[in-house]
């Protein structure tokens, strides 16, 4: 319910089409005195115009306004009253606010809806009902005034106080005073500002009438919707009846804590989008069309633009000029996941063969034939959509045009009608002009003492026997063409000859770690099917051979080097699976020493913790990429292992890093094996190089991903799998035309798993607009946050964390302020107005700033921080979305008969109940949280234990029990594990147990365990920043 209240489309998003008319009425300053929003000149107005009103709003003039509105507000009062219905949450407050703020609730359908926190809580009821949720969602601009920031500014104006309930004022004033200034400096200002009284508990503001009583989550703050309501309300009455139901504004007066339900909720946004577009077909035939959210379940039909599974953009409408782009500060970026896996009901990519001459390409810019090529001159020539060069059509490719000017074979040629397709590459596209060999997987197992003792080596060897049967293979092929090879190592490397002709495998020891080489050629990389008997024999013997090893030192760089050399010798590309135990301390290149220093945290030198240690690894990355050697690292450390350095090579070669601290077979074995299985079976391309071409006016300038850049344009990846995404940032270098729009073409040259050279092309067309509002409307929050995460994680290599965090907040504020200034209808400065497409952006941003890499806390392991930093770099939009806003799903009331998974709730402690059971997962970890009052039958059903107290400490899987609940819960868990790129270890935590702390850090709407503001506080802080920007 609450959602409806605030769920607001940006004022323009929907409104525009329909509302143009009165929009005009909005926004202008002058109007305000009269009617607030309506009076003014049209909104569309250029920024310049906007400014003045805004500032005026912020200023004194406000007071009159509010007073003016009072009446309206009162009218609204009706609504609030009706709202008692709403859950307990709001109930307690119900009365007082009403009386106080009756005015506030703006019944009228304001063109733009504005909510204040408070309001929402109160209004929800009202609004909720009238407007159909969907529409409301779409239409309501959202304005959420964060309390804290507002506070200071509001207080002064006389008018406000009246609105405030008497009780409230006391708290307010302190707030106002305490304030901001001081606290904002502090770094986590919001915390302070948000809650004048540190203790969330109700008592603080004893004065309040109905202290937040029990109701969950509502600390005793009074509801303040009222204050702003005033403004909002004003307009509403005037509004044409057009938007009756539309929720409206709210003005949350700042005060302390606001009703959490009143601020934009991700879960709600997701649910709404799912409702709206879930199960729908998304056709990519329209330029600049914003796709459904990543979380939404939809089907794509390729009609000329790449599926959003392959490319997602931060905005689908680029600003026409660099100035505009600079003004709004919304990053222009695309997240390309060239190998994204497609659901079964979507057509796999067609393969196009243009014969011996290779794919048809533009002579000048070398763009590949695609739907953006314009055929002219009767089909004899075509104009390149990217550089406008006019090219002759090769003879073999000639085709007549129809009356529309389209080629007659338009529908027969994927490259003319589809957004994504593949070309068969000719020898010109191959290394040394030789067709590539099928790729190879080399399994490199650390057999030092730790790994032997933990039983890991045996586990791996046993697993490989079955796993190797499932190597990825080309559609329709019986066996995989991928070759396999085996290496074990500690201080020295052991290569194995597993040629099928041998009765016994042969081991070859290379101790020359200073200059690694591969001691054998035939028999090292073999076809698994052919050599199965020998490989079995080997895998059986490896654990025994090293059973009584006492060698605890390892090498690392030489291991990778060995892989590179092996691929070089075999003239193929491939992937190394390295199972490593500890920091490499043996005398060899790439030897590392412990440099973990918690004292560096929160200093300017903290960045060194994230920087790789040695140039050896830099060179190694280069070598790896040059020879198409992707490195996947499975690390099993028992202490600090300098992840920043060890993961350096994987993170430049399209590899993944998996970390299992203090690995134990019993508890982590399954978890690891799931990862391994996924990793081995992934669909993948090798020795890849990607180039992003754009139409004139803008170009790709920066790239984030597990990639290697040897120049400024070629994105090199030793391998790219279905989970790896590259984020590409664009910059203008000229003006874009609204008419032609903007095109981009990602061409990925790679080697398939069967050793064919292919070109995978993804095309996407975007709109261009000289209206910022278009841009904001076409924004994609999930993509934005992906970009911000990657760029922030890169920035911490070079800057102090504090700066990075500041930049993030500033840019957030700036983006929102720009919207407010240029696109939103004029409103009181105290209102937080968020563009509809970005309304949950702050929660993501806040969550991002609370992630381990960006939080300077000595309690976090340096390795974990470095690990997260690097893994995010390669993530696609889905992964960052989930990581930054984990799914928290209640399971205690799950409908065992329903197919549908239970709906997630917001990630906040307030949503937990003592008698509940919740599943939380973020793509990396998974928790099953059990409330301390969990009913015994639930425990019995799930764990076959009489009560919660009997639960063992380190359980990591649910027992298989034959009852509906157990089955259901296990199926939910396993389907999640299935879906995510990484397997997750299931942690079972009881409320108030120590491990709960781990769980709590994922409740991203709450205050961070290691620092970082709660969502609410952050919002307030951002709001304040925005207001500062606007003044």
């Amino acid at each position, binding site marked *: 319910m609450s959602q409806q209240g605030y769920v607001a489309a940006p004022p323009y998003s929907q409104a525009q089409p329909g509302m143009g008319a009165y929009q005009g009425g909005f926004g202008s300053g002058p109007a305000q005195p009269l009617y607030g929003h309506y009076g003014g000149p049209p909104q569309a107005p250029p920024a310049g115009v906007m400014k003045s009103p805004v500032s005026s709003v912020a200023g004194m003039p406000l007071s009159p306004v509010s007073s003016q509105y009072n009446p309206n507000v009162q009218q609204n009062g009706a609504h609030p009253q009706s709202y008692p219905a709403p859950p307990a949450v709001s109930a307690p407050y119900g009365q007082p606010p009403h009386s106080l703020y009756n005015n506030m609730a703006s019944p009228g359908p304001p063109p733009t809806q504005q909510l204040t926190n408070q309001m929402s809580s109160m209004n929800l009821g009202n609004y909720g009902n009238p407007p159909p949720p969907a529409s409301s969602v779409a239409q309501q601009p959202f304005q959420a005034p964060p309390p804290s920031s507002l506070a200071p500014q509001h207080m002064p104006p006389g008018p406000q106080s009246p609105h405030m309930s008497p009780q409230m004022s006391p708290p307010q004033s302190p707030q106002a005073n305490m304030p901001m200034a001081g606290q904002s400096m502090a770094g986590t200002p919001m915390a302070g500002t948000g809650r004048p009284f540190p203790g969330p508990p109700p008592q603080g503001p004893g004065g309040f009438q109905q202290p937040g009583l029990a109701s969950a989550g509502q600390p005793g703050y009074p509801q303040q919707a009222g204050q702003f309501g005033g403004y909002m309300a004003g307009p509403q009455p005037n509004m044409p009846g057009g938007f009756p139901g539309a929720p409206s504004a709210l003005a949350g007066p700042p005060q302390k804590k606001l009703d959490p339900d009143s601020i934009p909720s991700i879960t709600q946004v997701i649910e709404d989008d799912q409702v709206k577009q879930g199960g729908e077909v998304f056709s990519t035939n329209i330029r600049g069309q914003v796709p459904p959210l990543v979380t939404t379940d939809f089907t794509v039909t390729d009609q000329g633009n790449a599926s959003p599974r392959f490319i997602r953009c931060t905005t689908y409408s680029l600003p026409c000029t660099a100035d505009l782009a600079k003004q709004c500060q919304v990053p222009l970026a695309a997240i390309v996941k060239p190998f994204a896996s497609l659901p079964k009901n979507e057509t796999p990519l067609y393969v196009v063969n243009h014969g011996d001459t290779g794919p048809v390409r533009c002579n000048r810019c070398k763009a590949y034939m695609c739907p953006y090529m314009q055929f002219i001159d009767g089909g004899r020539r075509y104009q390149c959509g990217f550089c406008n060069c006019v090219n002759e059509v090769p003879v073999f490719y000639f085709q007549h045009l129809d009356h529309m000017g389209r080629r007659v074979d338009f529908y027969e040629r994927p490259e003319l009608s589809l957004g994504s397709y593949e070309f068969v590459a000719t020898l010109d596209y191959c290394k040394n002009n030789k067709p590539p060999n099928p790729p190879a997987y080399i399994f490199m197992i650390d057999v030092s003492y730790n790994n032997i003792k933990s039983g890991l080596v045996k586990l791996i060897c046993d697993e490989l026997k079955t796993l190797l049967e499932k190597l990825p293979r080309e559609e329709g092929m019986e066996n995989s063409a991928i070759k396999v090879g085996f290496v074990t190592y500690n201080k*020295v490397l052991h290569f194995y000859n597993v040629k099928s002709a041998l009765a016994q495998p*042969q081991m*070859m*020891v*290379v101790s*020359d770690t200073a200059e690694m*080489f591969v001691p*054998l050629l035939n028999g090292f990389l073999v076809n698994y099917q052919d050599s199965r008997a020998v490989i079995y024999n080997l895998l059986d013997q490896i654990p025994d051979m090293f059973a009584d090893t006492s060698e605890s030192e390892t090498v690392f760089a030489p291991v990778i080097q060995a892989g590179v050399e092996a691929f070089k010798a075999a003239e193929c590309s491939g992937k190394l699976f390295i199972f490593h135990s500890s920091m490499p301390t043996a005398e060899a290149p790439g030897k590392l020493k412990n440099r973990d220093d918690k004292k560096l945290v929160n200093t300017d030198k903290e960045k060194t913790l994230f920087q790789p240690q040695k140039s050896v690894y830099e060179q190694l990355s280069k070598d790896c990429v040059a020879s198409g050697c992707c490195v996947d690292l499975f690390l099993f450390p028992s202490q600090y292992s300098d992840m920043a350095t060890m993961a350096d090579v994987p993170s430049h070669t399209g590899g993944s890093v998996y970390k299992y601290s203090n690995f134990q077979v019993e508890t982590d074995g399954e978890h690891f094996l799931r990862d391994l299985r996924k990793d081995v079976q992934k669909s993948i391309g090798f020795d890849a190089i990607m180039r992003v071409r754009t139409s004139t006016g803008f170009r790709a300038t920066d790239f984030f991903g597990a990639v290697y850049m040897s120049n400024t344009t070629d994105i090199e990846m030793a391998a790219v799998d279905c989970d790896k995404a590259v984020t590409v940032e664009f910059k203008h270098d000229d003006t874009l035309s609204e008419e032609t729009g903007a095109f981009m073409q990602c061409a990925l040259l790679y080697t398939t798993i069967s050793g064919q050279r292919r070109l995978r092309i993804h095309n996407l067309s975007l709109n261009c607009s000289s209206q910022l509002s278009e841009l904001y409307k076409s924004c994609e929050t999930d993509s934005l946050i992906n970009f911000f995460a990657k760029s922030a994680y890169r920035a911490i290599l070079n800057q102090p964390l504090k700066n990075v965090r500041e930049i993030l907040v500033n840019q957030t504020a700036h983006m929102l302020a720009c919207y407010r200034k240029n696109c939103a209808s004029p409103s009181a400065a105290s209102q937080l107005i968020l563009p509809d497409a970005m309304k949950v952006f702050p929660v993501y941003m806040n969550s991002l700033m609370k992630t381990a890499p960006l939080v300077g806390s000595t309690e976090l392991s340096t390795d974990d921080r470095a690990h997260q930093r690097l893994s995010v770099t390669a993530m696609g939009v889905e992964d960052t979305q989930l990581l930054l806003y984990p799914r928290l799903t209640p399971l205690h009331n799950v409908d065992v008969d329903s197919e549908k998974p239970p709906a997630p709730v917001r990630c906040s402690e307030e949503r937990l109940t003592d008698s509940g059971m919740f599943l939380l997962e973020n793509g990396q970890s998974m928790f099953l949280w059990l409330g301390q009052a969990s009913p015994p039958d639930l425990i019995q059903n799930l764990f076959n234990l009489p009560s919660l107290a009997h639960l063992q400490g380190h359980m990591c899987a649910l027992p298989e029990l034959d009852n509906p609940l157990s089955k259901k819960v296990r199926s939910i868990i396993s389907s999640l594990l299935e879906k995510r790129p990484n397997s997750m270890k299931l942690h079972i935590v009881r409320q108030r147990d120590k491990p709960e702390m781990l769980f709590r850090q994922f409740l991203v709407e709450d205050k961070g365990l290691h620092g970082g503001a709660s969502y609410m506080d952050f919002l307030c802080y951002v709001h304040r920043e925005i207001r500062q920007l606007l003044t």
Partner: protein
Amino acid sequence: MATYQEFIQQNEDRDGVRFSWNLWPSSRLEATRLVVPVSCLFTPLKERPNLPPVQYEPVLCSRANCKAVLNPLCQVDFRAKIWACNFCFQRNPFPPSYAGISEMNQPAELMPQFSTIEYIVQRGPAAPLIFLYVVDTCLEEEDLQALKESLQMSLSLLPPNALVGLITFGRMVQVHELSCEGIAKSYVFRGTKDLTSKQIQEMLGLTKQAVSGQQGRPVAPQDAAATCKFLQPVHRVDMNLTDLLGELQRDPWPVPQGKRPLRSTGVALSVAVGLLEGTFPNTGARVMLFIGGPPTQGPGMVVGDELKTPIRSWHDIQKDNARHLKKATKYYEALANRSAVNGHSIDIYACALDQTGLLEMKCLSNLTGGHIVMGDSFNTSLFKQTFQRVFSKDYNGDFRMAFGGVLEVKTSRELKVCGAIGPSVSLNSKGPCVSENELGIGGTSQWKVCSLSPSTTLGIYFEVVNQHNAPVPQGGRGAVQFITQYQHSNTQRRIRVTTIARNWADAQSQIQHIESSFDQEAAAVLMARLGVFRAESEEGPDVLRWLDRQLIRLFMFHLRRSPFLQVFNNSPDESSYYRHHFVRQDLTQSLIMIQPILYSYSFYGPPEPVLLDSSSILPDRILLMDTFFQLVIYHGETIAQWRKAGYQEMVEYENFKQLLQAPLDDAQEILQTRFPMPRYIDTEHGGSQARFLLSKVNPSQTHNNLYAWGQETGAPILTDDVSLQVFMDHLKKLAVSSSA
């Protein structure tokens, strides 16, 4: 009194010694005038079936810088139980164990017939023999197969307690671990990287084991045998190793068109030497290197892998155009010296049609007493039987090989030792009997001979130091003692002591005596050795000139023409090979090398030796030529036609069959005993292989003088070389004119 002939023969049989002069000129001046220095060929381990070793240790002279061994030439005071050293005249008491000594009860070493005596020393642990195979895998399939079989066969020939090891190499070098069950393990080294001995041992995990050992167990030296997984007793790893050898594959790395395979011989040897150094220093060991081509990469590289660059020829070397020569030679010399210091010898078995780099690698064997065997292919009986013969046994069933030999020479005061020429290195042991003039390897009185066979012979050169005005008293005798310590193939330490004496003679009054005591054969070989030794270090023509300047008898004509001095028509490898054998074989064999033996078989009588001359090549004769390296059976024109016609198959020509068979039987006899096995050539008049014969015989008839000489006998040789006749004529003229 026996003739000198008999005396010489007797001495050789008993002591393995042949002196150039059996009466020694009594002053330096006279000695110098004789041109051929006082010198001898000494065969330290000459087979003496009738010489049972004694089971005690030798008695040494107590003077610190003498330490000569009690011998029959010493004066003994049986009553005082004192003996006088015949070298330093120190009077020494007999040790307590000799208390019972009397004129009637003399220890063996005092009896004249025991001028050579062998002691068995009981000190120290018995060290096992070690055989480390270093095998090139860049071979043709057929060659590799043959080699594998030979190696497998050799396992059955090794003493059961001997340690064996296997290193294979091609582009990489693999050291095979032999102790393991299940998976075959090997340690691999890059073929291009020069590693120090320490690095090698570290990489093989040898150093660590030595340090840590197994918990609590003391690390005894003999433990090395247990802990070194690369060298294991034959009886334990027999099966394992046989399988391993069976599974050996050709070097798998592809060899592109126009390239040689990459062969890391240098590193392989370095690893072998390093391995032995680390595990069994000062223990008898044999590194057996089998190569099928030249080293083409890494340290010790002899030629690059580009086929278009041919391996160096003498021509290149003379023009200083052999770019790897010096570096490679230096590299192998360093290895050879390291190996020699530790008493390990290195054999080279090189089988290839082209050169294999013996020129650069020869020092490996020359300095360590190893064998060099050169053949065309491992799949020839030449190699197979030669290799088998390495493991031949003597009448006692012991291997005809000894290890870690140290030869010490002691001389009486009038004589000093200038040097030795043979498969040895100097131990740099200075002493009173070391001359300042060096001939051969000089400056020392001790030489290390890492590996000895019963035929291993060193040339030892002396100098008479007495000044002319202080001659040795008439009737005095000079004495030389050879003390050879070695490890017998049955792992015993032994010491063989040979003490000889010769009379001094005044050259002026007794010149005829001295002359008659001249051992022409020994002198020829000794001079030839000097020549070869010089040839190794100097330019060819200079050596010839030097030789010409010396007094020369018959042999020198052939020596001049021999491959030991002439490089024409021989590759550098071949020259190295021939010289290698020349400086170690005993006198008889050396003579054959210098002047090949030619036997003629005919219906006119029993086989007879004939002149090595073109005039001996007659149509109705079968010739058998033995050059040591080659055995050539040459059928004269008529004989060849008869044979072609198949007369030998006819009963009535049984005698012809026998005639054909006779040289074959004789050749077989030679083949049986010769090491290395000679190349066996059966050819006939006009056959292409007849060149082996034609190149050796004295070209008394050539195309130049053919018609002048008449045609009734012999076969003309197409050559510009001078014939013996011309040579002699010239020599005579020269001798006369120079004396004038």
